[in-house]
């Protein structure tokens, strides 16, 4: 019978391709973080120089802090809206189906398109809010403005996740609660939310890692400015590497990004008991 089964060769092209262009770069970035390289010549080992420099780099520390602010505020803005709209859109009413097909429209735009659209919209002289706040030009609120743009872009995606999950909640649970005379709010709090807890975890991991690695939106909207008000960690890495030509040092920052991202995913999953998720899904 074994000859009837596909040989391991069937998997070799996919594995090779992944190893070459995703896994190998992952290892190379660690190596490069111990080198000095200007992007043109050959990377030369320089011991732990990049790493000791990183520890003393006030700008890197500040960019980590901005990244954390961006992550937390994005999560706080996006999660409640996506959850409420997602549960609402899960309803079977025709009006809800029509409106939710409109809610998903931002998903069709590329990040570049969204960033350019919002940049024009928020432009202080000819945009939609002439005479209002400077938004991207005001160092005090630029980072929060970036959060708004990111939220506009990604809430529809998370709405979609919540809509799918809310539709999978067994109707019998609601029927029983209705017979008991439970209010709508109480049904949401005691049935919908607990049923959606694994979706909240999935959505939160994607959202937090997504904000950690936000790059193109900020590059186009502000390029890190005004001053360095929106220079978050991935942008700091990009500017250090591709504008400052310090590729070795930028690689050290990249390693920090990977470590932060992995730690974050693991922490959220562990803290929320994500491990039971697979068995939960198999049962449903």
């Amino acid at each position, binding site marked *: 019978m074994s000859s009837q089964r596909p040989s391991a060769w069937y998997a070799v092209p996919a594995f090779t391709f992944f190893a070459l262009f*995703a896994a190998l*770069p992952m290892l*190379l970035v660690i190596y490069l973080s111990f080198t000095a390289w200007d992007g043109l010549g050959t990377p030369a080992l320089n011991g732990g120089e990049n790493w000791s420099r990183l520890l003393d780099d006030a700008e890197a520390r500040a960019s980590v802090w901005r990244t954390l602010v961006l992550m937390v505020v994005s999560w706080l803005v996006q999660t409640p809206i996506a959850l409420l709209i997602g549960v609402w859109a899960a309803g079977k009413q025709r009006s809800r189906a029509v409106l939710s*097909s409109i809610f998903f429209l931002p998903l069709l735009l590329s990040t570049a398109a969204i960033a350019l659209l919002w940049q024009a919209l928020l432009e202080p002289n000819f945009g939609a809010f002439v005479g209002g706040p400077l938004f991207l030009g005001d160092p005090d609120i630029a980072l929060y403005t970036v959060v708004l743009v990111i939220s506009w872009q990604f809430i529809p995606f998370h709405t979609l996740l919540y809509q799918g999950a809310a539709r999978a909640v067994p109707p019998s649970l609601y029927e029983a609660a209705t017979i008991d005379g439970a209010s709508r709010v109480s049904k949401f709090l005691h049935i919908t939310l607990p049923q959606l807890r694994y979706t909240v975890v999935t959505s939160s991991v994607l959202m937090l890692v997504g904000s950690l690695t936000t790059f193109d939106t900020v590059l186009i909207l502000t390029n890190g400015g005004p001053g360095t008000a929106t220079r978050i960690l991935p942008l700091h890495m990009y500017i250090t590497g591709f504008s400052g030509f310090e590729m070795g040092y930028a*690689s050290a920052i990249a390693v920090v990004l990977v470590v932060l991202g992995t730690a974050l995913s693991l922490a959220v999953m562990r803290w929320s008991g994500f491990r039971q998720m697979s068995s939960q899904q198999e049962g449903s």
Partner: protein
Amino acid sequence: MKSRPNWPAGLFALVWLAIVVGPLLYLVTVSLRTRAEYLGKSVWALPDALTPDNYVTVLTGGFGQYLLNNVIVTVATVAIVVLVTVPAAYAVVRNTSPFVQKGFTLLLMGLAIPAQATIIPVYLMITRMQLYDTLTAIILPTAAFALPVAMLVLVNSLRDVPRELYEAQAIDGAGPMRVLVSLVLPLARPAIMTVVVYTALNAWNGFLFPLVLTQSESSRVLTLGLWDFQGQFGTNVPALLAAVTLSVLPIFVVYLIGRRFLLSGLTAGFGK
């Protein structure tokens, strides 16, 4: 289950509708205004006349080349991903050797690798391979980073195929290649569609790899082209927004035709 309308939620949904639609309306209406009107009048005021001129400006300004490059990158990326993942997913489901199973586990760990963190080594590799500033340079890493999700979706779908179906084919004397074509391909079709949509959207909207791996106009893709238009058009915001609108149009058409496929491709692997 019939129930009375939920007014507060409905109101909230309408507010959200305005927030979603407002910027999109702005995008389309400003792209149809003359530059003079954009500079002279508030965007809230009704325009005197709408004009397609901005679209003409964009279409005669390199947009066609960028669009073509985008199509090439997207088609090639999707082709590579589907060609390598379908046989691999079949092997993962039907071949129990440690090489295949361990390899699959490693590949899934790739879900956690942020592409942003790899741009420097990818840049190093691409320049060493003499591929810098070519479309191939964009295609290779874009396809590689689509593999984990694609494999996850395909393997999950093929695991649902009852073992008896494979065994019946084997009794008929079908070799693995024939099983792949006559059993796996038809059964995995919805999953393959999901993979196609997910990969195509990523490739179509990609920004980071093109930014770092290409330079000249002949290998510029749409997203970078838009960014470049911003410099080229300066204060000609209506023309810039016409370019943005044009870049969204192909995906909008797909959305109108196959909303279900598009949405399932977007949440590939993360939702039901």
